[in-house]
């Protein structure tokens, strides 16, 4: 995993730099997102690197899936990946691209895992608090996980704020057993 990230970084940076310069960030997001989804499909993953399928065919397939997002430059990017045998890295590249894009636009994706549905007023207070702390605009993706028992966990990149009852019980257990 760690290695993949290292190899994917220059591609993601190049794609982002290009898209930012031309002001086509959204279009490239679609391109990379769809291409990544296609590559992640097990049946496609099986043929990547197979000697029976040429790289041109793969690029054509990915470009077709991406539709109008895959213009000449997009195709060239996919072609470059194919000739370097790095098509399998597309999901990683797409993820890093989105990170770079979010950072440039001053937005951060936050995952909110809650034990029960969050009321809109609560969510707004949380968003306001997080925006103060992270000094960015916050995009919340809420998920319900009943195993937390109560409270919620907020995850923004590597930063995790654990306010769940489960986490607190675990810490209490650790203190008692220490």
């Amino acid at each position: 995993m760690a290695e993949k990230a290292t190899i994917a970084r220059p591609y993601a940076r190049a794609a982002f730099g290009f898209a930012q310069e031309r002001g086509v960030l959204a279009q490239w997001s679609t391109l990379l997102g769809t291409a990544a989804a296609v590559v992640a499909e097990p049946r496609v993953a099986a043929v990547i690197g197979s000697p029976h399928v040429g790289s041109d065919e793969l690029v054509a397939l990915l470009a077709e899936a991406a539709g109008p997002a895959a213009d000449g430059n997009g195709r060239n990017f996919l072609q470059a990946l194919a000739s370097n045998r790095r098509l399998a890295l597309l999901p990683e590249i797409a993820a890093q691209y989105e990170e770079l894009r979010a950072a440039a636009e001053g937005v951060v994706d936050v995952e909110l895992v809650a034990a029960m549905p969050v009321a809109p007023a609560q969510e707004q207070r949380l968003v306001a608090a997080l925006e103060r702390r992270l000094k960015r605009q916050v995009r919340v993706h809420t998920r319900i996980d009943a195993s937390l028992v109560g409270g919620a966990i907020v995850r923004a990149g590597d930063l995790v704020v654990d306010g769940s009852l489960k986490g607190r019980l675990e810490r209490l257990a650790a203190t008692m057993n220490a």
Partner: protein
Amino acid sequence: MSIKASEISDLIRARIEKFEAAAEARNVGTVVSVTDGICRVHGLADVAYGEMLEFPGNSFGLALNLEQDSVGAVVLGEYRHISEGATVKTTGRILEVPVGPAMLGRVVDSLGNPIDGKGPIASVERRPIERVAPGVIWRQSVSQPVQTGLKAIDAMVPVGRGQRELIIGDRQTGKTALAIDTIINQKGTGVKCIYVAIGQKQSSIANVVRKLEEHGAMEHTIIVAASASTPASMQYIAPYSGCTMGEYFMDNGEDALIVYDDLTKQAWAYRQISLLLKRPPGREAYPGDVFYLHSRLLERSARVSADYVEKFTGGKVKGRTGSLTGLPIIETQAGDVTAFVPTNVISITDGQIFLETDLFNAGIRPAMNAGISVSRVGGAAQTNIIKKLGGGIRLALAQYRELAAFSQFASDLDEATRRQLERGVRVTEVMKQKQYSPMSVAEMALSLYAVNNGYMDKVDRKKIVDFEHGLQSFFRANYADLLKQINDKPELSKEVEAGLKKCCEEFVAGATY
């Protein structure tokens, strides 16, 4: 159903009180791989170098490699329960160990946890294991002696408080014995001792503990044990933990002595960790920073000024200097001191005591090679009386070695040469000393005086050890006042010299050995 002692309600209540229930914000990562105690962790964007990491199951690790997309960490202790995908949290702290007088008399592991079965340690203070050594402004030169209690060492390679004196030699040459004798001799002197055992057999460590207990030396000693069966990470950090415990005494204006037994094995443990972390191997497959590994450790041995102690204790302790004397041990392979780690440590320390297999087998114990053993700063700290009486010893031995080689070819020797050879033989004999029988300054002074002034010249060489033994008994029995006087004020005044002379003459006249 039986109730466990830990379930007593007071204890539980205390633990609940300690428990912080607030939501915690932490940097987290995921374990990517676990190999021989080394974890690769993805994430942990804000981790610092050397920061303590929390793994599941109440185990901890150290972040040692910070790379672009992953963090390489060593797990301290058992690592079998950590699996791929496990969550790792940063703690924002660096590794700490408990310090203080409560540690004395205890055997602890590299993290300061007691392993002697004597219950928890009531230590209140914890300090980080890595610290920058005191700077030049706060230091003072070495001026007080550490009495090892061994004639050969104290007369020829004296060790001062705050000095770093290397003990180097092959296996089975008495390196540990020398260190243990020194620890035993610190009884009643106020010098606190720390013995760090790295990569040794559990049985050897148990032996050391038993011997120290037998001689009543455990009361002023802390033993930090990282035996051969503990993970490499624990062996790597053991000297730093021990040093932190010793620094506590130094900072509080006391004198401490630390023995690292031995740094060769610590370098091996570090080499293992480094290779598993995929750091590039260098000479003898050690990583590039092996020199720094030992230099930063040994630099922490120091003699600090009263100002430093006053500043450090916030004015509570005034007018007292502190010291941490280091006795690192290095094991050589077949006497090869030009290997990587021995050369490094020789160059870092303020002198070295070479122990040799040949001398050991010839019955000369401590098996010190007087020709190449040196103490670069200890001379300034030597007691006046030993300095005056021991000066002749080094010279006599040096001349003896030169002549001994030469005289093998010559059949007829002139009187002066023959006398010098005879003297050399006797000095060599007098330098022998049994294990676990350290001598006081007065006893040493008497032996040195007797051999220097020719009282042993007429004694058969095989009888020298008995003669010395008898002389010491006679001295203790009949000159107790003189003995006490010298120990209280170790100076060679006219009357002291006269006293020693009288003692020797009376004993030789009586000749009961």
